[in-house]
């Protein structure tokens, strides 16, 4: 009959009106500045640099200034200057480090290509979205200090990925130590013998050794 649909519709809206006062499933609005949204783990926005030790962030950067990300960055928003000296990295091996590492966030398009290409897991995607500033130029150009965040922070925002990365790094480190041990052993056993076949190591491990 004419009008029954109208009555049904009125009932639906009335239910929603009443429900919005007591039913959290109906009332889904977050009042944003006070209540922050719970971001999904896969949410990502703007890169940051990972350091291993929060007490000495710039000393324990994973970045070795290989400049792959700078070359790959589609909008060319990364600027890196290599250091002239070397510093021991997390494993104690002396490495070059970035003397200048700057990202222009007004140019960055959050494409994550820098993260994909980084062989050292040194740059990762952040979850920040409140990036508004009152200065168009200086405040949007983030330097090394502003970009660096500890590994523990990475664990808080992307726990799954961070655990994977940590496991991989630990495995790599173990493999490297194993290899060093084998090499040292072989050297000690038969100095004249030809190079023993190296233990199968991950490809990621070979790249940094062949790079310098």
């Amino acid at each position, binding site marked *: 009959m004419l009008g029954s*649909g*109208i009555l049904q*519709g*009125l009932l639906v*809206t009335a239910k*929603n*009106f009443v429900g*919005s006062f007591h039913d959290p499933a109906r009332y889904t609005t977050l009042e944003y500045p006070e209540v922050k949204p719970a971001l999904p783990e896969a949410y990502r926005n703007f890169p940051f640099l990972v350091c291993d030790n929060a007490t000495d962030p710039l000393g324990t950067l994973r970045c070795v200034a290989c400049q792959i990300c700078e070359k790959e960055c589609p909008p060319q928003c990364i600027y890196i200057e290599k250091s002239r000296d070397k510093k021991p990295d997390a494993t104690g091996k002396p490495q070059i480090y970035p003397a200048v590492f700057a990202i222009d966030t007004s140019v960055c398009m959050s494409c994550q290509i820098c993260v994909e290409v980084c062989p050292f897991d040194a740059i990762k995607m952040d979850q920040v979205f409140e990036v508004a500033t009152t200065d168009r130029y200086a405040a949007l150009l983030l330097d090394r200090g502003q970009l660096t965040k500890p590994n523990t922070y990475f664990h808080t925002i992307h726990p799954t990925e961070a655990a994977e990365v940590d496991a991989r790094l630990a495995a790599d480190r173990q493999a490297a130590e194993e290899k060093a041990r084998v090499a040292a052993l072989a050297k000690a056993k038969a100095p004249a013998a030809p190079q023993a076949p190296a233990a199968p190591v991950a490809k990621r491990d070979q790249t940094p050794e062949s790079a310098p």
Partner: protein
Amino acid sequence: MIAAALTTDSFLERLPVLARDTVTGRLPESWRWMAGSLLEIIAILAGFGLLFAYLTLAERKILGRIQNRPGPNRTGWFGLLQPFADGVKALTKEDVVPAGADRVLHFLAPVVLVAVSLLGFAVLPFGRHLVAVELDTAVLYFFAAGTATELAVFMAGWASHNKYSLLAAMRALAQLISYELPLLLSVVPVVLVAGTLSTTKIVAAQGGWSLGFVPHWHVFTPWGAAGFVLFMVAALAESNRSPFDLPEAESELIAGHLTEYSGFKYALFFMAEYFGMCALSGMAVTLFLGGWGAPLAQLEWIPSYAWFTAKLLVLLLGFIWIRATLPRLRLDQLMKFAWKFLVPLTLLNLANAAGWSLTAGWTGPLQLVRWAVALALVAVPFVVLGRTLSAGSAPRTYRFA
């Protein structure tokens, strides 16, 4: 006349009249009438101005709740200062007049609209002793005052020199003319049964209770219930409210006749829409819902103006509820609905009411016959006409859904 009845009333009931008399009593005799009228005008302007302000807020909050969001809640406690913030914004905005516009008409349209939409309040009885102008022809006056709104809408649309505005003005004219007819025709039964055009007398005719608890409101008779629904539907269309808000259909006509208006002129249009809504709701309360009468004799100690306000607010909330629910009609559906459905029903309702008043003397089992016939006269045409109206359009099978 008022003084004699006043003495029997409670203090709360007399309060507004007493307040007026204390103010006017200090003035010389010859000024009292003028001062009293001025006070009434100020009271109506202030009261309905405030109602307008908070109605906008209530509408936004209720729509928000229905759409699972809180609505404005930042300005002041629960957003209670939002209307004033909106007012300040409207006042300080730039007033843009298009280069090709007819400047005089462009300016006059909102002014005329607000002025005209305020006229109707003069004859609404807000309480037992609260009516600004006691007119013998009050109902006729009310609808005569309302007609000029169409002219103002046309002026706005035409003067804007904008094709969307003009289209909207034409739509508004067609819609307002079409719905004026059912609006007036749904009022005629009340006038016929009450035997008067005076709003106060119509309210008085609805006083009293049968069986001790059923008030003699017109809405509790078959023709009255039908008339009330028809009146409210036509009132929705007359005040350009959803689902009949075609003149300002955002999705098709930007904002219709309001497209070229900004700042305070736009706010005036908005104000006029709400004033029109309030006036028509007040008229519906007066004609069908017993005006300021209390629903139960035991509740009469609550002052009459409180009852009027309560009924008015219920109807206004109904407007908002409907807006939140129904989608907009298409123009041809709108016209079809008015001419093929509302007008025949109102005419039949008129005959129904005439029969009702002729059979007023019937008692006993004849009363049952009276009710049955009246109910059938409401229900049968509704079902039959409703079937022809929705023939071919419902229930619909969707090819791509």
